[in-house]
């Protein structure tokens, strides 16, 4: 419950960020004295080397971070569900072939794949990020869905639906997939936590959302080379990420406990 409350709070903050941010997140305050300052009353999170208010940038950054996470997980889950459902429902050699491909692709470390692709992309917008993260994230979803579908395929009600003349597509989407939904929702929730971290990491390497548009990762990147002096540029956005990711993980654990009562202890 606490996890859910925090998640809701973070989402609300992201939605109203432009209204509550004390400064313009992109504006350089005091161009004559371009300097990063430690936290003060006027700037609780300090300012960055371009004299921008870090609190405002963190608040605004949440929009990009959350939007990228939510939309890319949606993309990945949709792709993975369709792929895994087809593989699991088809079974046999089709399944073998499809899943062999997924296994091979999964052995490439995702971070290496992403930095390669993003670096070559040049200017990365949030949309590109969503597509690229979404298109590399469906592999594990497809594995999950496939094993669920494989298990449900031979259940009585499925056989009954088929006996009554339902088409394969109808059987799959009306009778099997709805029953495979709860693990998919759990995995999507935990996927959101994972992508928030991933996006932050990529932006931190300068491969994510491009400045001046703020995201949690690139705010930290702005201070990365002077981390010894500008600790506030790392600590505050990092805390924002930690709290959000932890809350999402708590919600995910809770959902899983609800979806799988036999394994309630895992949460």
């Amino acid at each position, binding site marked *: 419950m606490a996890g859910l409350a925090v998640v809701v709070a973070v989402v609300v903050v992201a939605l109203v960020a432009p209204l509550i941010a004390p400064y313009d997140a992109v504006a350089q305050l005091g161009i004559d004295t371009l300097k990063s300052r430690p936290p003060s009353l006027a700037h609780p999170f300090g300012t960055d080397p371009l004299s921008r208010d870090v609190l405002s940038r963190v608040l605004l950054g949440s929009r990009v971070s959350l939007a990228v996470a939510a939309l890319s997980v949606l993309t990945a889950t949709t792709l993975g569900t369709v792929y895994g459902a087809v593989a699991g429902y088809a079974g046999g050699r089709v399944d073998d072939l499809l899943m062999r491909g997924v296994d091979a*692709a*999964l*052995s*490439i*470390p*995702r*971070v*290496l*794949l992403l*930095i*390669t*692709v*993003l*670096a*070559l*992309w*040049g200017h990365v917008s949030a949309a590109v990020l969503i597509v690229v993260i979404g298109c590399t*994230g469906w*592999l*594990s979803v497809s594995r999950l869905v496939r094993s669920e579908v494989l298990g449900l395929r031979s259940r009585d009600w499925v056989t009954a639906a088929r006996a009554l003349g339902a088409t394969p597509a109808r059987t799959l989407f009306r009778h099997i997939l709805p029953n495979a939904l709860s*693990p998919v929702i*759990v*995995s999507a929730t*935990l996927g959101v*936590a*994972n992508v928030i*971290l991933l996006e*932050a*990491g990529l932006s*931190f*390497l*300068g*491969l994510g959302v491009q400045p001046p548009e703020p995201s949690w990762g690139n705010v*930290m990147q702005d201070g*990365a080379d002077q*981390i*010894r002096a500008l*600790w506030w540029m*790392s*600590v505050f956005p*990092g805390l924002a*990420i*930690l709290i959000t*990711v*932890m809350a999402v*993980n*708590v919600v*995910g*654990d809770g959902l*899983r406990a609800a979806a*799988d009562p036999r*394994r309630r*202890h*895992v949460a």
Partner: protein
Amino acid sequence: MTATFALIHLAPGDPFAGALDDPRVTQAVRDHWRHVYGFDRSLPDQYVRFVAGIARGELGYSIARQEPVRTVLARAIPNTLVLMGIALLLSFGLGIAIGVVQAMRHGSLTDRAIGAITLAGYSLPDFWLAQLAILAFAVWLPLFPAGGVVDPVMHPYLGPLAAALDRARHVVLPALTLTVLSAAAVARYQRSALLDVAHDDYLRTARAKGLSERQVMLRHALRNAAAPVITLFGLALPGFLGGQVFIEKVFAWPGLGALAVDAVATRDYAVVVAVAIVGSVLVAIGSLLADVLAALVDPRRRTGAIARPLPPVPLRV
């Protein structure tokens, strides 16, 4: 491999984009260099050359570093393996111990408190923890060096013992950071796997034999929970390697991860591809090792008769 090639060539830009896009460079010069490095050939032709090269074990030439990719990799791989090896050993030891303590006190305050800590460890941005480690133990409390493998100035002058100590001091922070991150994951797997077997009948048999709770846990529960933990970690290995990329970058640890990031910045195709390939090979070796180990601890896996599904612990992939 094919995927790597396809993705690289789908993306706009090539290694010369930076240097050769300068308007003062004439188109003739651009075309010359593109020709020298083979970028003017058709894509299928480039693909065939790319695959053939890799099949011969030729990883190409690093344009940015002006040396064969093989040489660059040969320098980076040992550093990565050292860091990875230390972190894996420590995180398994620590993670298993934490998971055992939690499972033995399942539901207690201790279990919940540790659970909150491991969840936090599991939710930490890798690079942020690395930065905090530098701030805390290299800047505010200057106990350890903040980066690199050895002291860049003094190392050549140190005696063998002092040199070894210098190396050890440099590995502490990156290794501990990686350990904290993956020990949290291992602890979560371990606890969940132990609780999955907690109601199994053979544990009751063990108690009926007169074993103490501790003996039941260490001799029977832990052994039965080991295979799923190993398998899960095999699956989580790509994520582990991904985390190492950030740690190496922040600590300026000259391994594969930092190499990849730097090569990306200079659009050094050959190096990027080579690192991705080596990374995949490492993962493949790790998965194979995990399968072998899991079969060693659980004889049923040797015949393919796996008794239960894996615990549903999410992986950081």
